[in-house]
């Protein structure tokens, strides 16, 4: 058992950090929307799915079928990043406009918004399974099957530590996620709009009285949260190279868990929660087998919530509000 752990801990850590980084990026969307609206945006997993298919659409449009390198690779990645961020961010804004704002205007309960979120989630999944995948991606009557994504760059080991090979794709995911997190942190903490977001999440009524345009702040929150899901979706499509109409579902549940684990409403908590969840899953698998990884992850979640009901960094949010 201990031998197993020693021989597997290195590779598991790298794998765990890479999946954790993707969880964390998606978790941001849940946590930001929760922060301003106290709403769990269940359709966020479909925002992710839309971003991943947007990336594939551009890949097909450019006629990419095999690995790229050099300038072409950098240019393509930037373009794909732009496409998936725009698609996810745009879809999130539309979702807010269509599925949430009318309810909010009429003063509907949070429960109604939750049902609306679930409805939007099912609608978007079926839209892709029945129309977009068969028609746009030219896979007639295979809307529910997986859609392959061509390889964007060759996978190589960049360097090794002991028996652990650090691969370029894993490194790219972790670095990209951390960079995005830092940018987002600066945006929320240092800019005017960021201040508006923080003000709204602390006390929406007072924020309005102070001249914050709450509709515009909510729209921006959805846009930014969606764009982060877009980054995650590109990283996901690049790493796992296959997509499905319900690709967001499992990841959405994991990311939501990560958000709660880190303390929902707290941005740094989402990063911490995501990385922790990825690591716990992979380390737990070493001892108990991969079939136990969800059991282990959720046991840890329950344990953490028993002792810290607001999540690991939840308290600092409370303090910030006071």
């Amino acid at each position: 058992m201990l031998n197993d752990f020693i021989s597997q801990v290195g590779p598991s850590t790298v794998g765990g950090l890479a999946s954790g980084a993707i969880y964390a990026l998606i978790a941001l969307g849940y946590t930001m929307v929760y922060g301003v609206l106290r709403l769990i945006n269940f359709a966020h997993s479909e925002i992710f799915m839309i971003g991943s298919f947007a990336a594939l659409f551009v890949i097909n449009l450019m006629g990419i079928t095999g690995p790229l390198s050099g300038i072409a690779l950098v240019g393509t990645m930037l373009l794909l990043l732009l496409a998936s961020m725009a698609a996810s961010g745009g879809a999130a804004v539309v979702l807010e406009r269509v599925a949430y704002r009318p309810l909010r205007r009429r003063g509907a309960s949070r429960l109604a918004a939750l049902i609306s979120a679930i409805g939007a989630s099912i609608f978007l999944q079926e839209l892709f399974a029945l129309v977009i995948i068969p028609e746009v991606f030219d896979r007639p009557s295979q809307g529910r099957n997986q859609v392959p994504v061509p390889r964007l760059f060759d996978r190589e080991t960049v360097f090794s530590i002991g028996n652990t090979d650090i691969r370029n794709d894993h490194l790219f995911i972790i670095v990209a996620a951390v960079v995005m997190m830092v940018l987002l942190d600066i945006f929320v903490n240092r800019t005017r709009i960021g201040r508006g977001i923080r003000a709204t999440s602390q006390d929406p009524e007072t924020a309005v009285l102070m001249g914050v345009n709450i509709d515009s702040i909510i729209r921006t929150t959805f846009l930014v949260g969606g764009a982060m899901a877009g980054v995650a979706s590109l990283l996901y499509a690049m790493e796992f190279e296959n997509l499905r109409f319900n690709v967001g579902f499992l990841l959405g549940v994991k990311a939501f868990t990560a958000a709660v684990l880190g303390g929902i409403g707290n941005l740094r908590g989402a990063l911490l929660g995501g990385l922790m969840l990825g690591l716990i899953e992979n380390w737990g698998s070493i001892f108990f087998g991969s079939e136990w990884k969800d059991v282990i992850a959720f046991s840890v979640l329950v344990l953490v919530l028993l002792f810290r009901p607001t999540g690991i960094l939840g308290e600092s949010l409370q303090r910030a509000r006071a």
Partner: protein
Amino acid sequence: MGDLTGQDSALMIPPSQGAQLAVDEFNAKSTKVKVEMVKYDSQGNPDQAVTQTQQALTQDKITALVGPGFSGESRNVGPILEQAKIPSISASATNPGLAENEWKFWHRVVANDGVQGPAIAEFLVKAKSAKKAFVIDDAQEYGAGLGDVVAKAFESQGVKVERDKIDPQGSDYSSTVTKVKASAPDVIFFGGYYAPLGRLLKQLRDGGVTAVVSSGDGSVDQALVEGAGKDAAEGAVLGCPCLIPFGSDVPELKTFSDNYKAKFGTDPLIYATEGYDAMSAFLKAIEAGNTTSEKINEYLSTIDFPGVSKQIKFNPNGEIAASVIHIYEVKDGKVTWLGDTSKAQLS
């Protein structure tokens, strides 16, 4: 009889067309007796199969039945045919329990599920002189069952076995890849379907695992190559009780494939050869002058001819004598038939 329009009709249309091909060929050359084939769409539903069997017996007065396609419907229909003394041959029902009912009129031309696992394990041990195996499954009824049988068969051959399970709905299999890499097996077996196997294969190869990867009948599909990517899928070994020609050059198979394609416009897929053989067995009996149900059934007990899929000869319990498992390998991005476990040579 089988699921011709339901959710699993992709498994049942090929054998039905195979049987149709056999009947048409027979009618074209036979002058004395003409055979009419009536199709019964049970949609794979055991209750519907019973209703339709009764209709077949009373209204259409069938002489013999090819089918039912699945094991569940076979279990329900078996006793009715037994009482009516109507012989049946299934091309695709693989539950081992069916042969234990002491039915005298029931037959099948395909090996049962109990044969597949051990045959694949034995083949791999021989072909790759494996000392260490890693068995992965999808934790579902079919996949875990097959995984268990294969793991046991490996162990009985003195091969050390380690195991892990994956979530067939998931996509990140990095923890499994890490385990496989640390264990450094000679062969890997996956119990489950082609879609998760494709994702797993890709991640195993990216993770630097080079051991041969194998799987069972749930993975014999060209879509495996699409899911895994051409490079990662290369060299994967698949076992199946079914014989799918996949464009094979072997003369008998080529003739069959060409005739099939000319008639139906598609390549023969899963159980097409078995459907053809099941019908051919009845037609041989008729050719030999047997035109009543009971006489045909008597003839079946002594029948022995080379079918397209295998030698057709039945044990007294109705089980096919040649319980062969066919081996396929992914070569140049195409699933390719290599022959049964006794003849197949890996490249």
